């Protein structure tokens, strides 16, 4: 296990690995063995993975190396180890959503993104832990135990894609897939000091993503660098006839012009969150704005008060859609069944036992918000608030090319710090939720460390299908970020601090 500042090829990122494997400089098998070695050594402390798929990964790596040897194109992500959030269907491989109700369930089909990664030559090493059914901001709602933040094992990695974020932060894989419904990629990215992209709604197929809130869910990518997260996103993006909400246009190029800089770009720093977040986070956003200005962008503060409608609207819409999406878990066709004298009782017992407390809470509030007499007051109003927010975004994008904001209200908090009060946990999503409601893309880029030495990310938001400009600004932020926050956690620790697991 190399501990030099350069690290193993595995630490040089998606593009470097693919390039090396494709050219024959390195083998997929070698990269995979490095990844698996690290996982075996350290994941028992971190618990990023629910499941490892070593044999299949090895077979895939062998096939990649074989293709290269025969002069056959192994794909744009050849040999890149990747982890998949355990709410993505993987054929024949247990997919649980970190819930007891799906424990042991093996989907008979692959999610579209999973097939696309495989066709691109990426090597899936396992399924990562999440908050149960993607509901949560800390991965503490997993039925199989939390994931721990590689920067500090007493703290959460964020959620719901905590396992995927931590796996990249720990250097286990070069990239991972997560899903983002209210911030579940960006928030853990921020807390784990890695890049997390939520694309435009409809850019990436949801077929095979086990649904939480259908009009908000999107699959996205984690990586250490913006360009690597973009490279992985490019492979999974694009129209899918199996998803009726998948955009028809061809996916935009995400890497073109990535490093062209921000000269002349109009950046709006959203002021409405700054009072509600920790000082370190608002300072990071301010500093990020200044860095972009120094790089030639026109940066201005902008107030978009409708942003503050996001959280309450979300906590009606998301649970409402979830209550319907999770109705199918009834013990009839697959998953957990708790017996009862009649089917109604069987359903009710199965769901009460199979769902954790947070899931039950959201199913309850969602059912209530849709119920007779309350639909107009809650769900109906929330969908209208959504319209107001979208209009506000559209107005902002007349004046600005991108918007800037903190990603999270604080750096990683301690395990158990927010579990007593669900609402406190929900507030973690304050800055990320608006983009889910609008369907616009957003990326979190690690930018600074707080006084406890914990990473803080800054968010770049762009209009629909504005990924290219968004990532260009992200890359500029990355270049200006504090050096102490760059690179995977394990590599940064090589200079003397405790490596996770030791």
């Amino acid at each position: 296990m190399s501990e030099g500042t350069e690290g193993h090829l595995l630490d040089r990122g998606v593009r470097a690995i693919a390039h090396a494997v494709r050219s024959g400089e390195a083998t997929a098998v070698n990269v995979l063995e490095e990844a698996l070695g690290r996982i075996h050594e350290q994941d028992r402390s971190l618990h990023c993975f629910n499941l490892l798929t070593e044999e299949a990964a090895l077979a895939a790596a062998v096939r990649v190396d074989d293709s290269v040897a025969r002069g056959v194109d192994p794909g744009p992500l050849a040999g890149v180890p990747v982890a998949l959030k355990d709410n993505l269907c993987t054929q024949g491989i247990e997919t649980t959503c970190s819930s007891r109700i799906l424990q042991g369930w093996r989907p008979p089909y692959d999610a579209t993104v999973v097939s696309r990664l495989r066709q691109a030559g990426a090597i899936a090493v396992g399924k990562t832990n999440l908050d149960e059914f993607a509901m949560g901001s800390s991965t503490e709602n997993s039925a199989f135990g939390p994931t721990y933040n590689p920067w500090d094992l007493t703290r959460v990695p964020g959620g719901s894609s905590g396992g995927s974020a931590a796996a990249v932060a720990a250097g286990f894989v070069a990239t991972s897939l997560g899903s983002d419904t209210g911030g579940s990629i960006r928030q853990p990215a921020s807390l784990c000091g890695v890049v997390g992209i939520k694309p435009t709604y409809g850019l990436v197929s949801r077929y095979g993503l086990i649904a939480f809130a259908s009009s908000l869910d999107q699959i996205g990518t984690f990586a250490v660098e913006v360009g690597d997260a973009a490279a992985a996103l490019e492979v999974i993006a694009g129209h899918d006839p199996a998803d009726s909400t998948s955009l028809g246009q061809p996916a935009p190029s995400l890497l073109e012009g990535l490093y062209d800089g921000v000269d002349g770009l109009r950046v709006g720093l959203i002021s409405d969150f700054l009072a509600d977040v920790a000082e370190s986070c608002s300072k990071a956003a301010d500093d990020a704005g200044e860095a972009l200005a120094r790089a030639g962008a026109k940066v201005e503060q902008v107030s978009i008060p409708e942003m503050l409608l996001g959280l309450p609207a979300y906590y009606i819409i998301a649970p409402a859609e979830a209550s319907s999406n999770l109705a199918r878990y009834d013990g009839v066709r697959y998953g957990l069944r708790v017996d009862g004298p009649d089917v109604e009782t069987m359903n009710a017992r199965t769901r009460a036992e199979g769902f954790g407390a947070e899931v039950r809470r959201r199913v309850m509030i969602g059912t209530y918000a849709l119920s007779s007499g309350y639909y107009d007051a809650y769900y109906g109003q929330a969908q209208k608030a959504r319209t107001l927010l979208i209009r506000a975004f559209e107005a902002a994008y007349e004046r600005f090319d991108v918007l800037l904001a903190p990603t999270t209200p604080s750096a990683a908090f301690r395990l158990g710090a927010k579990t007593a009060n669900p609402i406190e946990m929900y507030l973690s999503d304050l800055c990320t939720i608006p983009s889910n409601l609008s369907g616009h893309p957003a990326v979190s880029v690690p930018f600074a460390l707080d006084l406890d030495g914990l990473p803080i990310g800054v968010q770049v938001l762009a209009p629909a299908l504005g990924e290219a400009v968004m990532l260009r600004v992200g890359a500029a932020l990355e270049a200006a970020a504090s050096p102490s926050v760059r690179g995977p956690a394990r590599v940064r620790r090589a200079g003397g601090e405790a490596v996770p697991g030791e």
Partner: protein
Amino acid sequence: MAASVELISLEEVRHVAKLARLELTDGEIATLQGELSALLDHVDKVRRLDTADIPPTAHPLPLENVLRPDEVRPCLDREIVLAAAPAVESDRFLVPSILGDSP
């Protein structure tokens, strides 16, 4: 944290649990009453918004008429599907007796 006036009654919580097919203990119902009330309080500003003439957004996408051709494609192997089922008889999914009729 407890709201001085609960925004949802115990009876309503029980009714919602029934709609959602969740068998909850009295203790869980009571806890949920508090939690749901707090959440309803938190989202109240949306309820109180003046939204006259504002259309709802069901979709962030401007798509229409996404259709597929009427052509048969291979389906799933029954054995694989039934293997995942908690109970099977005569190639069908077995469930305990159904009390109600289909609404």
